[in-house]
């Protein structure tokens, strides 16, 4: 039995209860007495309306702590007992310890730093730097924190302008004394942002660590705590001058992996160890024993960090799939100055699409090819399809991640439109995004 259809039907009307409460001057947090349509009386605190609750249902928190939905249609009624006490402002200052190093935390939103309001049950993200720090106060045992909330967006709503701002803020923080920079970020598009910072920043003097959490920090089991604390340890304790992603290595809470920004991909929708380094081992690990980094890691640069964070807006990223018509393909890349196609297997598309690639490149649009297999390299030399794609002007990107290719192409096209120059830059391994050796 499910009542999904009932929910969907009433979802659209869900706002009605809110309006009724407002008309009575009642808001979430107020104590009320409710008489249900069945004539039973409940006393409790009004809760925010759930999106899927019935239109005539009010949710109250009983004295026992339970929330229940009560239907007020027909004969139900509701009266205010007392208004909620206004929330006391809770001002806390972040303490400073002169003996500790300073790490910057630049938050972009998401639930990695969030609070529960047990009175209404609402979970809201930290909206100030102080709130963010005090969501994991153990951070202050490791370092001083210079915190900044840059934006508060769900990561699926990130735009290229957010990448640009973020890159500039990171540069500013590192150039003014921080020994590292932690960037709490929603995990959905964390890999894209990591790659964007990677191409935008050069001469990096300290670790720039993107961390996410797969279980929000209002839960006792949140992975945010160990991810953030490990990030602080990495910033204060490692000779690393790279953009990295730091997340759980396994489902366990005491093993974390450090991924090079251009190689990190979210490969699971919900697990803690969703992020993996694709086509190469992780750059390093953190566990109880300490931090270990592969020899290939780049050490802290001397001097000042440099930033160039311009991105071309008109770039498309798409998967080829059987049955994709030339017409549909054409519509989805219309107006694009660059296109990344994640082809099947070694990077293939159908004959019909090859003709489209040809006309795109002739009109000056860069077309790059990756593999949608995620693991392995694109190779357009093996089959005639691949060779035809190359003749049509497609640029094979070997084992570069499709997402990284999209970010890189956006960054390259903001610098040059010259086809030869674009090809040269895209095929040049700039930030460890490509490798020639893939080991068994």
């Amino acid at each position, binding site marked *: 039995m499910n009542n999904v259809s*009932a929910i969907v039907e009433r979802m659209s009307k869900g706002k009605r209860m809110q309006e009724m409460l407002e008309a009575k001057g009642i808001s979430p947090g107020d104590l009320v007495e409710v008489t249900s*349509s069945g004539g039973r009386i409940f006393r409790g605190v009004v809760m925010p309306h759930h999106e899927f609750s019935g239109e005539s249902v009010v949710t109250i928190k009983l004295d026992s*702590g339970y929330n229940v939905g009560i239907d007020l249609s027909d004969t139900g009624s509701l009266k205010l007992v007392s208004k909620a006490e206004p929330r006391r402002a809770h001002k806390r200052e972040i303490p400073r310890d002169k003996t500790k190093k300073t790490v910057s935390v630049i938050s972009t939103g998401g639930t990695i730093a969030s609070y529960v309001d047990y009175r209404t049950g609402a979970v809201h993200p930290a909206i100030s730097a102080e709130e963010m720090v*005090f969501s994991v106060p153990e951070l202050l045992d490791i370092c001083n924190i210079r915190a900044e909330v840059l934006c508060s967006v769900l990561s699926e709503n990130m735009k290229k302008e957010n990448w640009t701002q973020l890159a500039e803020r990171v540069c500013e923080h590192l150039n003014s004394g921080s020994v590292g920079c932690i960037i709490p970020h929603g995990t959905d598009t964390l890999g894209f942002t990591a790659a964007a910072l990677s191409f935008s920043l050069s001469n990096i003097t300290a670790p720039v660590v993107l961390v996410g959490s797969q279980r929000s920090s209002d839960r006792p089991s949140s992975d945010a705590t160990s991810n953030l604390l490990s990030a602080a340890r990495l910033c204060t304790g490692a000779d690393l001058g790279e953009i990295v992603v730091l997340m759980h290595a396994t489902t366990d809470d005491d093993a974390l992996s450090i991924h090079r920004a251009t190689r990190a991909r979210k490969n699971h929708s919900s697990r803690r160890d969703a992020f993996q380094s694709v086509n190469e081992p992780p750059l390093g690990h953190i566990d109880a024993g300490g931090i270990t980094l592969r020899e290939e890691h780049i050490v802290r640069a001397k001097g000042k960090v440099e930033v160039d964070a311009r991105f071309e807006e008109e770039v498309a990223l798409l998967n080829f799939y059987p049955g994709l018509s030339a017409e549909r393909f054409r519509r989805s890349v219309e107006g694009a100055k660059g296109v990344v196609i994640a082809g099947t297997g070694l990077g293939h598309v159908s004959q019909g699409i090859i003709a489209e690639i040809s006309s795109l490149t002739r009109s000056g649009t860069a077309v790059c090819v990756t593999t949608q297999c995620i693991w392995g390299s694109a190779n357009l030399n093996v089959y005639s399809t691949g060779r035809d794609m190359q003749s049509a002007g497609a640029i094979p990107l070997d084992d570069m991640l499709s997402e990284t290719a999209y970010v890189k192409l956006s960054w390259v096209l903001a610098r040059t439109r010259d086809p030869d120059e674009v090809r040269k830059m895209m095929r040049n391994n700039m930030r460890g995004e490509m490798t020639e050796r893939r080991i068994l």
Partner: protein
Amino acid sequence: MGSPDYRSLGLKVGLEIHQQLSTGKLFCSCPCDLSEQVVRRFMRLLRPSQSEMGEIDRAALEEAQKNLRFIYESTPFDCLVEADEEPPHPVSGEAVRTTLMISKMLGAHPVDEIQFMRKIVIDGSNTGGFQRTGLIATDGSLAADGKKISISTICLEEDAARRIKEEGREVVFRIDRLGIPLIEIATGPEIETPEEAKRIAERLGSLLRATRRVRRGIGSIREDLNVSISGGARVEIKGVQELYLLPLYIDNEVRRQSALIEVSRELSKRGISELKPKKIDLSKELAKTKSKVLMKSLGDGGRILGIRLPGFAGLLGPDSDGTRRLGPELAAHARVSGVGGIFHSDELPAYGITEVEVDRVRKELGAGKMDCIVLVAGSNENTEAAIERVIARARQAIKGVPEETRDPMPDGITTYSRPLPGRERMYPETDIPPFTVTQDLMEEIGNQLPEYPEETARRFIEERGLSGEQADALVKSGFDRDFDELVEAEIPPKTAARTLINTIAELEKDGLDTSRLNSEMIKAVLRRQTSGDFAMEAVPMLLGRMIEQGETLEQALNSLDISSVSDSEIERVVESIVREKRDLILERRERSIAPLMGLIMSELRGKADGKKINSILTAKIKSVFE
């Protein structure tokens, strides 16, 4: 010692009965089964989540201070949901329906919309750090013994992981049990005697089983007891699994609270109103002790810390009835801080601590005749924390009985486990859409109410020819449905009843997990027995083998070497034994039947009917001495 007069003591008991359902898990599609097969292990940490006011639940905080690492064992009966690696799926409709059904049977009123909550629990028993629970119905009642007991709430929640063991700071849990639906029925505090509590629990249990959607076997039904007496305090005894022990726990709690009230009165008589004892390091005074526990602590670089409790003399040891008093309470609190327990002067000299040493320590602590001394031994850090807890608990003794949660022990006593959780520990489970309880649904459920236990018993007597006792036993043990199935499969009712009532109880007594027994297995065995393939005696052996080794009936028959033997084979075996023991028969005559029966049965057990062997043997013996 006689029973206390519970009514004049103002005993109030409320029951919370937790019954596992067999509907499939509450928030995923895993089966409701337990497993011994561990597929992998993983390690997690839990910390109290902060609300924006920085409020943390006091019970949660106490758990957090223990700084534990949790090792979870995964089995074939759990998935990413139990591992806290995937959001919960929508609630099991079957579990909700069953809960609504029992609500209706108890005359409770369902809420209009069920909303699931997260109840913060960070002792590791839930991988997420919270238990999901929803309030389904309120305000029902249960009539028993001409008295009406109110049913205040009926909730549907997920069961916790199984605690397997604890080693130092590591606690091991198995997550197969996590997520099994659990109906929680809470009565009002109107129960007035321990026996009444047992009857109410039995009645609720049989109503729940009447829905035929409940799990059976060890641990599938658990009781929490809320117990208080006048002048005492609400104490929650959590997780009683044996129904027959329920009156004993309540009786002991009444005695414990009475004793603690008496302690408080005595302290007040002695003029003790506050407590500020000085902690003194006694390692030097006891450096040469022969007490093994103390020696070990000192040897490990630890110390012995002592305090004087002024006016507490004689109040830590048991009272004249043998009821335990403050000693075990202080010890339980000390143990929370990682020491093994306490030593107190009401029980010293003992444990290898000599009278001379006690006198020396008393002197060092400045203890007079009316004072009690308490010692703890262990690491510097642990003893400090432990003695602080002992002091805090001793202060509570001045006031009387503290509210708390206690763990039931197998011998009928309870020990302190943690403070009663505060109220601020629930917030909405936003991953699960609310469930609308429609009028149509309630009507549908109303039309499908199961046969009530007393109706079932009557039918068994009238239609199946069982005795009243047998019918009652079947209904109480929840095997009524299996009985129906067996009889439908043309197993004689008496055989079916005997197997379900006696055989299963015997298997349980042998420590076997009979929750793995299903009616198909019993049916298969009894069918073969009925058609004469083996004797009734073989039934428990076969079933035992099938649940313990996971064998099929055929495999069990093979491994136990059970086959039916012909009458002539029985004659042959009896004949040879009779010949062998001729002297014994001549000497003891009829009284030799019993020992000879034993010898024959060890050869023929399960292969032939005991009654038949007995009659052949009796005839043969007679022929010897006649």
